[in-house]
């Protein structure tokens, strides 16, 4: 009994000795990314040249933003499949409403944000108030949003306004603006989640909604907030895509859906909900993008590229189920209740 009572004290001491504890997901994804960079350096050095990174990092930034959005929903034990529609709608509103006229862009952005709030509230109400399964509800909402995509665009792409192209595709201090957006959003999400009361409540509710309700937290409101915030981030991602690709299609969100879930899982956030790992999620987005650049750069046939990506992704996720040696284990935060649950 005495030993058990001492345990928390020991942990506190350990934490002090080693500085801030590191989450297992963070270490895993960081190690995987460093290993990938070494592999790139040896086998595909062209994928690490400045020009190649300048070309691929904006797409990593977009993936990071939708990954963070998906993470917020996953933290509440949900899934947001309306990501595809949400991003696509922002893309077509940003290109069709202004129709090449930069002065009209702010109006388009506001309209896109308004639509995103509506879609987010709808998702949230369906899932947390009407208790529908998140996958079913968000598929339905996605179909509705695609109705909007067709209503706005007729499925036809249109050229981006020069202003949006300059903002999303431009560079500041030698770094693509898309990266600055991703960084700002990362800092915002991480600070709110980890340093504010709302954020702490948000994580607690995700970890155990029943307990949270029992102590009087507004569970539904936080769950709805997750879906609304996610849709808001899809708008940012959609605007960036519209600016980065000069003539985006009306279905630009579709290829982002699966990777968005992949980066959340790679980042270590449990699909059952609970604690979120924003930094790891963003690193995972870079990892996935660099992985496809690696597969492209080593110049193997398309079939092999696909296999390499699937293999690396499987390996990345498998690492979580491996038992780490004791020495490394000490470095890592000894308990992550959500993960164990």
């Amino acid at each position, binding site marked *: 009994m005495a030993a058990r009572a001492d345990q928390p004290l020991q942990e506190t001491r350990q934490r002090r000795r080693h500085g801030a504890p590191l989450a297992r997901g963070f270490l895993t994804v960081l190690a995987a990314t460093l290993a990938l960079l070494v592999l790139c350096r040896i086998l595909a050095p062209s*994928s690490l040249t400045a020009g190649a990174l300048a*070309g691929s990092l904006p797409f990593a930034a977009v993936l990071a933003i939708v990954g963070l959005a998906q993470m917020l929903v996953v933290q509440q034990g949900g899934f947001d499949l309306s990501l595809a529609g949400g991003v696509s709608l922002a893309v077509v509103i940003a290109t069709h409403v202004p129709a090449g006229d930069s002065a009209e862009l702010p109006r388009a952005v506001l309209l896109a944000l308004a639509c995103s709030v509506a879609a987010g509230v709808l998702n949230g109400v369906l899932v947390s108030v009407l208790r529908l399964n998140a996958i079913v509800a968000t598929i339905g909402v996605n179909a509705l949003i695609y109705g909007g995509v067709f209503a706005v665009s007729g499925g036809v792409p249109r050229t981006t306004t020069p202003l949006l192209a300059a903002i999303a595709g431009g560079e500041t201090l030698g770094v693509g603006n898309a990266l600055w957006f991703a960084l700002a959003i990362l800092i915002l999400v991480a600070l709110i989640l980890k340093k504010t009361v709302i954020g702490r409540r948000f994580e607690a509710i995700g970890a155990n909604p029943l307990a949270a309700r029992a102590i009087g937290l507004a569970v539904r409101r936080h769950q709805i907030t997750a879906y609304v915030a996610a849709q808001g981030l899809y708008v940012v991602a959609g605007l960036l895509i519209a600016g980065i690709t000069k003539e985006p299609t009306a279905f630009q969100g579709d290829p982002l859906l699966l990777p968005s879930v992949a980066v959340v899982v790679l980042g270590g956030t449990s699909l059952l909900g609970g604690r979120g790992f924003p930094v790891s999620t963003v690193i995972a987005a870079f990892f996935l993008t660099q992985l496809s650049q690696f597969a492209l750069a080593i110049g193997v046939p398309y079939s092999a590229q696909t296999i390499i990506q699937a293999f690396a992704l499987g390996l990345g996720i498998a690492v979580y189920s491996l038992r780490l040696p004791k020495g490394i284990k000490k470095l890592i935060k000894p308990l992550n209740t959500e993960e164990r649950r």
Partner: protein
Amino acid sequence: MTLSFDYRKIMLTAAATLGMGAALTLTSGGAARAEEPSWCGPKKATLALLDGFGGNSWRLVTTASGKEEASLCPSITQYVYADGQGNTQKAISDIKSMAARGIDALVVFGDAGPAVLPALTAVYKAGKVVVPYRVDVGGKAGQNYTMFIGSSFKDDGVSWGKWIKSILPQGGNLLFLSGPAGNSQGLDELAGLKSVLDDKYKFVNPAPFDVTNWDPSLTQQVLTAEIAKHDKIDVIVSDFGPSLVGALPAFKKFNRSIPALATSDGNSLGCFWVENHKDNPDFKLFTVATGNDNVRLAVDWAVAEATGGKLPSAQIFKAPVFEDSVSGQPHPVQCRSDLPGSIYLSAKLSGDDQAKAVNK
């Protein structure tokens, strides 16, 4: 990518059930013409144009072209259009319901390939004129349908190959980008290219072509990786020019000139060349027509069969060479900056009419 594509199909189906866009009925212009084309016979008939997937600008322009072609023949009393919305089941039921409604002739873009063949065969056996075009649906003319009006992608490859030979007689490095993995269009084009170009011309992409899914964002990532990898790319060959508009500025990030480009036309691409060729000394542009007029030949056949007109002599649509920035023949590079980027100036349909079709 297959997954996400199927996913989109599901979404499109759902959108369809939610009542997005029912079959659109349009009556033909019907204005009597002084000179009727030879393929227009005296017998009255009705005509339907059936799309497997109608949701992009190329299809909208093609649909408008088909409608205009049909309106040239006053014997066509009704012209109907239906969009399968990327849903094979809807495409099949569209074909059957058109026949049930008593339409005499059907022109079909069979996106789903052989999956629509049984429906086409049933309708053909019921005595309708059935003309599938552009996408091979299998089967045989006279047995499963009246006539198949294919498009020669191999000829596109031959046209590109000849031009590449003319600008690079000593040989060079080529980069070939096409759509989804293993698509037959890309393979046919490659066969055409290889029939003209010998070993002096090296394809630097993984065989048979770089996969882009004709998606602008994937195209951009693929092109970036290839530019980083190869110091010398002399010509880019792509079967969907407009998807390169967002990707080509990647060369600037490497401080290199955009190389020569052999592709298909698009207004946004033409305007991109006009704006950028001065800063990029190696940027030469050669395009073949994107092939919207393929539908016209198919309509001619269907109308001729249904109205008793004279059958056209051509059975395959050969996309003509459209722009050449080097020789200016048959056209110098075209740009109409006052019109949307997503129209095709190579199509017979006037630019303004295309803008109307795309902007509706």
